[in-house]
């Protein structure tokens, strides 16, 4: 995988951390997942790899469809403010990515660029969940982490198991669908998808 391709995936991830509009973030995550599927198809060595690439693409399209529909069904009167300004969010995400790259030794993927991209996407996903208050952005944070891990599975020497790759894709879709059910109920209950309102349970 070329360095430019890895940077493209990382840039999409960083975009999710800093952008304001939910539709733009969904588009970025979808573009990232489709780029991963294209990478898998390009490097496919057999029918199993092609099936895995197809599953990645299908997962990206299903999630995109569900998330765009949800955005349309739960229009916010005004955008949910994040816990931090875009520049601060970006700085936190990049700092976390650098820390992870420093802490985690050579993973064993087929290129160092791919390893850095994987760690950056995991860090961006965690940063998105931690710094965004909009429930839909928190779901996108989890999808970002899974996209990073999908890239890791693609760049494993010898490849990952097809069954595991399909299982991970299915699990992510299931979790995202359940999250969407919760998002819609939270929106119906509070009139907004703002996770900051979920603060009744304290000890």
């Amino acid at each position, binding site marked *: 995988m070329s360095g430019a391709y890895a940077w493209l995936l990382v840039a999409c991830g960083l975009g999710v951390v800093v952008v304001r509009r939910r539709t733009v973030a969904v588009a970025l995550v979808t573009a990232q997942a489709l780029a991963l599927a294209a990478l898998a198809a390009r490097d496919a060595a057999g029918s199993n790899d092609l099936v895995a690439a197809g599953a990645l693409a299908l997962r990206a399209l299903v999630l995109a469809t569900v998330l765009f529909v949800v955005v349309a069904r739960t229009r916010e009167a005004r955008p949910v403010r994040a816990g931090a300004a875009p520049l601060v969010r970006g700085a936190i995400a990049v700092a976390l990515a650098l820390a992870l790259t420093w802490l985690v*030794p050579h993973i064993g993927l087929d290129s160092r660029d791919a390893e850095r991209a994987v760690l950056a996407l*995991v860090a961006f996903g965690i940063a998105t969940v931690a710094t965004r208050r909009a429930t839909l952005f*928190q779901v996108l944070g989890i999808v970002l982490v899974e996209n990073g891990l999908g890239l890791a599975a693609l760049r*494993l020497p010898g490849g990952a198991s097809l069954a595991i790759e399909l*299982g991970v894709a299915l699990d992510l879709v299931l979790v995202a669908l359940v999250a969407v059910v919760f998002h819609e109920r939270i929106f119906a209950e509070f009139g907004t998808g703002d996770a900051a309102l979920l603060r009744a349970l304290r000890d």
Partner: protein
Amino acid sequence: MTSRALLALLVVAVPAASALLLAVAPRRVVRPLGLALSLPVGGLALALSALALAEPGSPQAHAWWAVDAAGGLLLGVVGLVGLGSVLVSPAFLDGVRGSLFSGPRGERGYFAVLYAFWALLLAVPLAGNLGQAWLLVEATTAASALLVGFSGKPRALEAGWKYLILTSLGLGVALLGIVLLAAGVPGGGLSGLSWHELGRFSAGGDRAVVGYVLLLAGLAAKVGWAPVHNWLPDAHSEAPPPVSALLSAALLPAVLLVAWRSEQALTPVVGKPTAGGLLVAFGLASLAVSVPFLWRSLAWKRLLAYSSLEHMGVIALGIGFATPLALAGVAVHVAGHALAKALGFYAATPLLDHDPRASRRAPAGVARQQRALGATLGISLGALAALPPSPLFVSEVLIVAGGFQAGRPWAAAATALLLALGFLGLAHALLETTVGEPRRRPTATVRLRSLAPVSVAATLLLAALSAAALWLPGSGIVAALVRGLA
């Protein structure tokens, strides 16, 4: 196909098929069908559990499934708690007003998702490799989050949301650890992640340690170990009582089994001090965090939730010590905690009938007004506090002794001290809940319905477990637990 393989297939396939059947069944037959199906599902799980524990010296491990003593123990626990949860569900559902599932689909959705969750829980101890185990654990998140938020009330939505996001993120970190480990096992792929092959990791000790730490840190978020336990008290307190029982008594130890199998498989690579030390650290942190909450006056289900944090810490310590004494204690603790905790959560439904405000504040003097209910709460809390002759008293003694046997005297001493402090907190709660000064006027006797036979059965099983706990150290089961699947 061997009898164990066939049983393992049926143990997972029957509840999964039941979930599908319940999802499309006519509304009027959902409840009787749900109750009837619990008997074969529970029976199959208990049969395979008995088979695995009767012949602990001959574990079977394949690419996709494995049956051994530890898996057999968990199958028995999940089978029994699942059975109890289904049987007490009608009493809970009779009091439900509205749910996450719209309109008349509430009861059907509840039973279908409950069976799907049960099927996944039964599949986790049978998983033949780490990748498959991760997939099953992740899938339990989707099913159980729907059940946590079942009531659709704001607090339940908050609990379900936190649970879904935090555990999914944690499991993402665990998957990063799995990728790291898979890259270092010769051959890689699915076969490289089998419990046998993980021990052949050959890409350097540092990478193995990082992979192991990421894996355990991620699983910790799902087990509910401190400091990544934030979702646990919320989800346990807001879920329907039969689901809280499954979460605490079945889900947490099932995920813990994955951590245990990983520890056993990777000990030759990362070294015993690191492999066990990390679990001991999680165990002590969980105990230390839980104790101050056990001293506070908390609503019944929230108190049980913090008790889960304490007990998962105790089990982590036993696994981390990894001596025969400690693992004998782990076996007794897993079973005893499941029985006592499930009973406590099942009793929450009649408790809330008796005192609806018990969902927000600590109950008091229940045995003075409702003897049978008070006795059930007392048995549950007494057993969880490890009050003799509770089997948890024996298991905690075994685990602390195992710590000294393992050459970790400071950790064992700290465990004993924290357990003593936790006992004081729970003993105070036990006295307040049962014979304290009631905060409300006497009401009509609450009907225990299906809780009565479940309560008697759980009490008898706890007594039997106390007796068996004395025989367990030195048995073939403990030898098999020490050996594991590797």
